[in-house]
């Protein structure tokens, strides 16, 4: 077991890769009452085309199947897994993103028992024609719920504008039509391709003894018979050159328009370290331009173009990357124009050195806050780890940034790039 201590943060992460390939991370947090564990596979909604290892066949599966599989893992031949957790009072859950599926629990007692339950249920698929059919009604309502949600609609509208047919633009839960096609056979194909321990991580945080936790996990994994698998082959359609569609519009029964807009990232850096640095640099310029203390942010509000909810974010992986800006706006098109002009002006002129220093300090503070949340640090650490990054080195990366790096990254992202815009309008009164 390796112990990696982050001196400045006063935190130590213990890690070991087991014989079957499972990567285990343990972060002791003395004083906390809860233990939080997350068991994650590098498999999400975008992984819809791949080779099934057992028969070497390349298949394309229905949209939304990773999320469907997540739901179905909670059912075992003996019954509902929630019951096992409920016996100890633990709370269990799961979530699916574009590139990961995570199963988790948090508990204040019987950690060993709960950890065993977590490992065992995720490593024991049980799908039947009947239980697959039953889930379609439940997930159908989950999809309906999101259909009425303006934030979700405008977000996926933007992703469609940015990516077209590339799977990141497809709703994580799929559609009523796509989930109708899901069968237990396809679920097993997905399961056996992506749920091998060598494609997974386990992160445990809380007032735990790292040695004891690791022993338990090791014994549990040794007792299971896993054969080594060749590397997973995943296939993605090509990214469109530039954006797919400039404007995506939609109507919902809401009080005022909601708008999101953004650019695709042209520079998909080859190494995780380079991506981490780019992400940190973007975080800084976004805060300088649109953070609450920016005069531009306040002016957008004072000019009646948006409200305090206006924000921006950035995502970058080894496959794709994009920025997103926006919020509520009575004049969405004017807001887009104003922000776009501003981005060009600042990209040309460079950010203010004082703003740069302030944003760096703010980023440090926000990172420290993350360390006080067991769930927060576990989830961020894991998602970054699966992208090849160590989030606990964020402070060093931030310190190493200089203003030229940030200006260059901003210019690169904005100049000569076309923007996609997504608007959800209030429905015409009928």
């Amino acid at each position, binding site marked *: 077991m390796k112990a990696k201590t982050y001196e400045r*943060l*006063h935190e130590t992460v213990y890690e070991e890769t087991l014989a079957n390939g499972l990567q285990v991370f343990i972060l002791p*947090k*003395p*004083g*906390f*009452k*809860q233990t939080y564990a997350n068991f994650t596979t590098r498999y999400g909604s975008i992984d819809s085309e791949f080779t099934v290892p057992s028969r070497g066949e390349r298949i394309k599966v229905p949209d939304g199947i990773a999320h469907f599989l997540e739901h179905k893992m909670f059912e075992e031949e003996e019954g*509902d897994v*929630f*019951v096992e957790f*409920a*016996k*100890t*009072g633990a*709370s269990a859950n799961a979530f699916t993103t574009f590139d990961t599926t995570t199963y988790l629990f*948090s*508990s*204040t*007692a019987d950690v060993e028992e709960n950890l065993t339950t977590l490992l065992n249920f995720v490593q024991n698929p049980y799908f039947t024609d009947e239980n697959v059919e039953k889930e*379609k*009604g*439940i*997930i159908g*309502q*989950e999809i*309906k*719920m999101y*259909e*009425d949600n*303006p934030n979700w609609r405008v977000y996926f509208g933007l992703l469609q504008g940015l990516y077209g047919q590339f799977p990141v633009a497809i709703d994580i839960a799929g559609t009523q039509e796509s989930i109708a096609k899901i069968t237990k056979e396809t679920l097993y194909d997905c399961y056996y391709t992506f749920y091998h321990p060598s494609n997974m991580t386990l992160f445990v945080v809380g007032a735990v003894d790292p040695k004891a936790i690791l022993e338990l996990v090791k014994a549990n994994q040794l007792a299971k018979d896993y054969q080594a698998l060749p590397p997973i082959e995943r296939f993605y359609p090509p990214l469109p050159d530039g954006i797919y569609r400039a404007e995506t519009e939609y109507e*919902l*029964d*809401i*009080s*005022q328009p*909601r708008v999101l807009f953004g650019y695709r990232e042209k520079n998909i850096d080859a190494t995780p370290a380079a991506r981490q640095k780019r992400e940190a640099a973007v975080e800084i310029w976004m805060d300088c331009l649109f*953070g*609450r*203390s920016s*005069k531009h942010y*306040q002016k957008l*509000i004072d000019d*009646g173009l948006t*409200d305090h909810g206006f924000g921006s974010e950035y995502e970058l992986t080894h496959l794709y990357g994009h920025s997103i800006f926006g919020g509520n706006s*009575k004049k969405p098109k004017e807001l887009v124009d104003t922000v776009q002009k501003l981005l060009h002006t600042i990209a040309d002129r460079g950010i203010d050195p004082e703003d740069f220093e*302030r*944003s760096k*300090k*703010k980023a*440090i*503070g*926000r990172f*420290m*806050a993350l*360390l*006080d949340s*067991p769930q927060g640090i576990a989830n961020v650490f894991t998602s970054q780890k699966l992208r090849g990054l160590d989030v606990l080195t964020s402070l060093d990366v931030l310190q190493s940034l200089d203003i030229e790096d940030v200006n260059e990254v901003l210019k690169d992202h904005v100049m000569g790039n076309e923007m996609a815009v997504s608007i959800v309008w209030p*429905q015409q009164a*009928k």
Partner: protein
Amino acid sequence: MNSTWITDRIGKQVYLHILATEKYKMVSVFAQLESELLRDRATKLALLPQVLMRGTKRYPETTALIRAFDDLYGAAIGARVNKHGDRQTVEFTMQVPHEGYLTSAEGLFASAMQLFAEVIFDPKTEDGVFAKSDVDAEVVLHAQRIENLVNDKIAYAGERCVQEMCQGEPFGIARLGYVEDLPAVTPTALYTTYQELLESSALHIYIVGPVDEQMVKETCSREFGRFMNDQFAEHLITTVSSADLSRQMSDKTERVVIEEMEVSQGKLNVGLRAQSSYEKDDYPALVVYNGILGGFPHSKLFINVREKSSLAYYASSRLEGLKGLLFIQSGIQMSNFERAKDIIKQQLEDMRKGLITDDELNFTKKGLINQYLQSDDQPFTGAVLQMYSRFTGRERSVTQLIEDVRKVTKEDVVAVAQGITSELVYFLRDKEVSQDESQDL
């Protein structure tokens, strides 16, 4: 780690509560002023935190004020209005990294508290009242904030239930106030409300983190002491059970409210009233009742509406403890309204009849204890419990709640169940006969 709260006073108005603990890297600050929830004050109080965040005497420009916070490692300041039972509170929060984890950041906490105190007590003024431009701008934004509530249909349906069930009582007043009351909010009117609040309400400040108590006391005495008014006399809000008053007002008959909008999913909510609430001896049994009914994935609503019938993705219940009200919520296909309603009603009936398994009872008690223990990992839990103790006159700590829940028996839960009446069925549905409905017919 057995940390305990230390309480101190600053002048006549400020109560300082400190919890020193090495568990966190951040120092978290929560401060709260309170008022009775009154229709003619609600909108102004809701607007007040927004206007206070516009500027202070030292930093009259909004941007400059927020920059001052950002310079302190992004000290995250927040100000909001809230509603707890029949009280409206103005709450301020701040989180700042403990300076020991940073290099050359001495005085960080003191600087942050100085700004924090100024936001509450030393706002920017013009001609002795709030600046007209600030108030006007925030009035426009607040109108939008209220109108935007309809955009989140789950939250909207929940809020409509509260309004329908508590018409004519304080708890029925909207947390954010009313758009139609905004035109009357002038700089003078708002400033008067602000002064009345400061003249009547104590300020309770809670500070949690790896701090030195003595240093916190000294810093806060200095930063808040300069604003203290010797004449201050707290206007104590009556602690008579507002839940009892509500129960007397209720006519105990069930109403059905159907609202139509352009939605693709129907929201079926049910409003229930209990004879128990936070200040009563049988409150722990009410908490367990809510847990068995709809607080967990093993609960009756989740199992019967979702798992057995596949009618919904979410089906749960929520307890408004201070008022003794429960709200069931679910998202369903339009055509399943009757079916889902019947299943929900059946669960209520089963609980009245005592059809509660040992597993349901035990899992719920364990789940609740787990939640209480976990709440101890959040810095503001103690603050909320102390606030509720003041509001109800009933002291409940995390430890005591756990002890009380442990002792609850099935008979206790059934007794609570028999006092529960269903007063509202609320359904938010689409405007026309929907596609899926016509297919089913």
